[in-house]
């Protein structure tokens, strides 16, 4: 991806993050944070019949974490659990420099070179740790 475009998308999602806010009591709430740094994000996820209906987030985090959260949420809303898990798996493989499917990831491809900054990998994957927790919680409750 063109580095200028990459930067633009990340900054845009950082400065105008989508789906910022708090969910209501029918949402599953999870917290996700990095012990090694200071990012701290709450995710609210609304599931209905194995579909992710809505996600909201709130908290304090760096540009990479915030942008990654904003992008992830946009991509996951409307997906079924299976589709969401495939997306998450592909994203994690990209970060770990394994074979992954870029076509699945759309805008999340902006993080395809984050592996070059080891200290930023945990920032990019922060929301993914959270959504996995939320999905596990949903499966438990079902």
């Amino acid at each position, binding site marked *: 991806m063109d580095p200028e475009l990459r930067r633009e998308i990340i*900054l845009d999602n950082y400065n105008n993050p989508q789906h910022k806010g708090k969910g209501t009591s029918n949402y599953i709430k999870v917290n996700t944070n990095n012990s090694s740094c200071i*990012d701290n994000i709450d995710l609210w996820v609304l599931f209905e019949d194995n579909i992710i209906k809505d996600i909201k987030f709130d908290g304090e985090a760096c540009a990479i974490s915030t942008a990654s959260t904003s992008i992830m949420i946009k991509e996951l809303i409307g997906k079924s659990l299976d589709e969401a898990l495939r997306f998450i798996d592909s994203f994690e493989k990209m970060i770990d420099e394994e074979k992954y499917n870029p076509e699945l990831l759309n805008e999340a491809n902006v993080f395809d070179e984050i592996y070059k900054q080891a200290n930023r990998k945990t920032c990019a994957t922060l929301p993914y740790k959270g959504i996995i927790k939320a999905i596990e919680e949903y499966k438990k409750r079902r």
Partner: protein
Amino acid sequence: MNYKDDFPMLNTGIIYFDNGATTFKPNVVIDSMDEYYKEYSANAHRGDYDISLKVDVAYEKVRDKVKEFINAKRREEIIYTKGATEALNMIVEGFFANILEPGDEVLITNSEHASNILPWYKLAKNKGIDVNFIPLDETFHITLANVKKSITDKTKVISIAEITNVVGDARDIKEITEYAHSKGVFVVVDGAQSVAHKKTDVQATDIDFLAFSAHKMCGPTGIGILYGKKELLEELDPLYTGGGMNESFDSISEVYYKDLPLRLEAGTQNIAGIIGLGSAIDYLNSIGMDNIYYTEQQLSRYLIEQLSKIKHIDIINMEPDSGIVSFNVDGVFAQDVAVYLNKYNICVRAGNHCAKVLKNSIGVKNTVRVSLYFYNTKSEIDKLVELLSDRDKIMKEMI
């Protein structure tokens, strides 16, 4: 002064502004530890042979150096620990756990380091003591008036840092201790950020306990000091028992511990670390503690003067008494500022600096922290200020 010849790390091209976390080590410290490992690597208090005797002498000589350095009255009042954290835990668990009753009160502040909060919280949970906070003024300082207001009949201990690690304020320990003692209240001082930066005199301040770490004063990691008045240390229960601290143990009912200080130093100690600490003290003395304090104040004033000129920078502590300056860049998360500066080999700290409760006082959770030491220079500060002066550049390069 140019310290490049003294510190290998000052020749790496790195600009290091995280001295609150740990400091660089001069060659004299590294060499003295090397020498121990290469030339007289033996245990202490054990041997009947020359190199072990040499270790014994070195081990106890450093105790004397520490005693002089903080002006303790007696050498038995100096106990080797792993660092400030271990020393604070020993003070709380070994001493105060045995004398405090449920409902007794400990006073701390919102700007304490986790190592001076969590041991007390643990005691609060296990023993039912109360932990309360002396309020800070608008510039995050403790005032004697606030100390007076906070002390109640229940107050038994005040436990505070002499210099805090987030806003760099220095407390008037002598004045606070004088008042506390008049009310029968013990004073514990966390010296992690102060002993390295200004002259410490435990007799002049008359404090009861002091904790500090060698690695924040040009010494090695893994070694620190617990100071306590002799009559109090006598009552401090060893958290560890074992080799080196016992006199004899013929049966369960016939266990005898050694006298201070060895009673509180169970097991083989960090001998290389102790030797390194001794060299660090010699080194700091050769520069002079007053000189170090003065140099840092000059540097932090200069930094604040320069940063104040930048509109998009919000300085948290306009009046630090030390080399610690915390700030934020408008609209940029602290960690992103640190990542940006790292690209130019400048090390600063982003975060809550282990003083998590401070957010209650300063209203922001995270800051960028610059913590200076005497070996930093104005030209390093100029470089930092130049990089921070262009907000668009930060926004562009932080990711």
